[in-house]
């Protein structure tokens, strides 16, 4: 092998190496069975909805449906609380049913989907830092920043694909059962992946610093909780101006979890009808992720192994 390869062929070689790290993250996650568990959960939920939940149009009442669970008719709490009892069973507007189901899906993704995703992917990231394994990787012609980012990208891609499968699968089933499909669910899924990517950037930094998964995960959850305080800034300020100031600082430094959740609810039509500022929470949260990744890459590139 020569060093005199052209610039283009070097770029191809680097791209191949970058993709190999991503691919290996996937293989490892399958080998650890955690991804299989995740796939089973997603498949299980979709199968449950496909075969367990029955939706039937009510004759003579367009746009209204009855819901059954394994053949047993259900009383469904709709977002608007609308419900009409007629002889055929419990009846709700079809649109409300679709929205309710989307809210359940989002409720599963945040926080449980993200938490499970963090649990799987942070473990994958830490495993790269095991010494004997790292020696083999660092001695290859791939820069440390590429190695770090490729492993990060592998985790994000894993959660992206799983979330997309879940959302697209649910959307298809909804369409088959009700004839209604709300593409907002896909957009909401993408924001969920974005939230995951933001917290994963923080978890990978902590995994790098602690060289373990446990502390990194716990600390990420603690900071996630602190970020949630941003929603109660005004309430905290009335309790104590100092608490209010602390909440302000946390709000501006940390990802805007509440605002991002509001965007998701808006996308599935369940939240506020209009959002005053979408780009501020998205932009500042992306900045947070960028800063965490840059710090991680900087530390990883300078550390002795």
């Amino acid at each position, binding site marked *: *092998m*020569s*060093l*005199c390869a052209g610039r283009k062929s*070097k770029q*191809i*070689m*680097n791209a*191949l*190496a970058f*993709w*190999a*790290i991503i*691919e*290996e993250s996937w*293989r*490892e996650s*399958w*080998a*650890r069975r955690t991804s299989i568990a995740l796939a089973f959960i997603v498949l299980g939920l979709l199968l449950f909805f496909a075969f367990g939940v029955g939706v039937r149009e009510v004759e003579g009442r367009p746009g209204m449906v009855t819901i059954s669970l394994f053949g047993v008719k259900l009383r469904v709490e709709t977002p608007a609380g609308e419900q009409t009892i007629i002889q055929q069973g419990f009846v709700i507007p079809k649109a409300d049913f679709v929205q309710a189901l989307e809210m359940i899906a989002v409720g599963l993704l945040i926080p449980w989907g993200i938490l499970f995703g963090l649990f799987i992917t942070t473990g994958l990231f830490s495993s790269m830092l*095991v*010494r*004997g*394994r*790292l*020696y*083999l*990787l*660092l*001695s*290859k*012609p*791939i*820069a440390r920043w590429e190695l770090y980012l490729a492993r990060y990208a592998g985790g994000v891609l894993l959660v992206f694909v799983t979330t997309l499968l879940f959302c697209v699968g649910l959307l298809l089933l909804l369409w088959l059962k009700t004839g209604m499909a709300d593409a907002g669910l896909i957009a909401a899924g993408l924001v969920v992946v974005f939230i995951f990517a933001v917290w994963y950037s923080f978890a990978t930094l902590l995994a790098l610093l602690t060289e373990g998964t446990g502390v990194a995960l716990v600390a990420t959850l603690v900071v996630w909780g602190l970020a949630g305080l941003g929603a109660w800034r005004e309430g905290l300020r009335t309790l104590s101006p100092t608490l209010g100031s602390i909440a302000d600082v946390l709000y501006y430094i940390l990802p805007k979890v509440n605002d991002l959740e509001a965007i998701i609810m808006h996308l599935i039509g369940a939240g506020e009808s209009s959002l005053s500022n979408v780009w501020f929470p998205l932009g500042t949260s992306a900045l947070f992720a960028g800063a965490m990744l840059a710090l991680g890459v900087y530390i990883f590139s*300078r550390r*002795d*192994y």
Partner: protein
Amino acid sequence: MDGHRNAVEVIELQKTYRGLWGRAGVEALKGVSLTVREGEIFGLLGPNGAGKTTLIKILLGITFADHGRAYLFGQESHRVELRRLVGYLPEDYQLPEYLRAWKALDFFAKLYGLGERRAHISELLRLSGLEDRRDSKVREFSKGMRQRLALAQALLHRPKLLILDEPTAHLDPIGRKEVKDLLVQLKRDGTTILISSHVLTEIERICDRVAILHRGQLLKEGTVEELTQEKSLEDVFVELVRGAQE
């Protein structure tokens, strides 16, 4: 590139592993200078903690020197692109246990950016005596088989410089002989080999030149013939190390 005579050159290399909060820890290298010429087999000898592995890690950019310079083929050794010329077998390695043997080699080949891999991987598996276990998962391998696979991953890209840290550890006598023969064959093909080993007889038989390190200092560097004119390499080694301890 090919005009350089030295495959490896280190000049006044110093490395101290810092303790907590930057407190001075272990001085792993105290100004070591040595050269490995292209096409030779160079033995790095020394007791545990001599600084052999640290020196190798600095050459590969795994660890960074505090002072001094390290060159591979005349270029600063930390350059990532240089690793296309180097194959490395660490003393402590962990192969991806969940992959099959050929898939593990395929993964490492991709890291080297190799395009056509299949035939070359098959050839390496044959050379390593693992041809009939190509579809077995690494976790099912014995220590000796893992060692052969780890050596194969270092040879994937036909490196100009092969750095081996205890290459015959975990191998039985037949395996050692095979590795030794392979190294001699690689040397004939023009590969430069830097080998760190505790097995002095092995070093004595295959190396052109050796360096003896002790507690981060270079005690001696020279050809095997020079060092073993009156005594065996083992006696020279023990004498030098004991002398340095006193």
